[in-house]
């Protein structure tokens, strides 16, 4: 039987690495994961917050949070371990397009 991996184990493995957090209501956060608890409240370092501009939803407001933060787990929808978030995703797509052309 294949070994099973619990969801929280997956997050535990991501400690110390970059993690991309998609929140309810189209907010996103990227940061270095320092720790978490059973409610999936997260402690993050060097977090960057991506929020859609309330006046112009196509415009994304990027905000660097220099200090360590505790992110409330109840707004968290999806965690992507090892990802640098929307910016690095766009870079990857650009690179792939360049390789193809």
């Amino acid at each position: 039987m294949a070994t099973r991996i619990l969801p929280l184990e997956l997050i535990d493995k991501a400690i110390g690495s970059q993690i991309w957090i998609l929140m309810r209501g189209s907010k996103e956060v990227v940061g270095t994961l320092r720790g978490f608890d059973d409610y999936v409240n997260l402690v993050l370092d060097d977090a960057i917050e991506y929020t859609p501009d309330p006046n112009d939803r196509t415009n994304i407001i990027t905000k660097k949070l220099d200090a360590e933060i505790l992110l409330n787990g109840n707004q968290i929808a999806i965690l992507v371990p090892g990802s640098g978030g929307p910016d690095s995703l766009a870079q990857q797509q650009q690179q792939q397009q360049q390789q193809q052309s």
Partner: protein
Amino acid sequence: MSEPTNTGTPQVPETAAPEDTKRTPSDFLKSVLGRPAVVKLNSGIEYRGVLACLDGYLNIAMEQTQEFGLDGQLKATYGDCFIRGNNVLHISSQAKRKTGL
């Protein structure tokens, strides 16, 4: 009076002993207690002040509180204020922060 004994109720096994690199939300909360911090609510409003008191629901009692609106402008100041935990998006230790936004 009898000593409280371990009732042997099944519990979720704790992940291995906490490493030095790991920093759980409760570690974080202990470290920011009594220190200046920024609390951001789901609505986007920010409160800066000294964290006087905290609990597990992220209910917060804050002193010397400054309220900043969505535009980053100072909206109000409070000597003491209570923030109900369900509104809290994140708590940031204010160590490396500038006073402005």
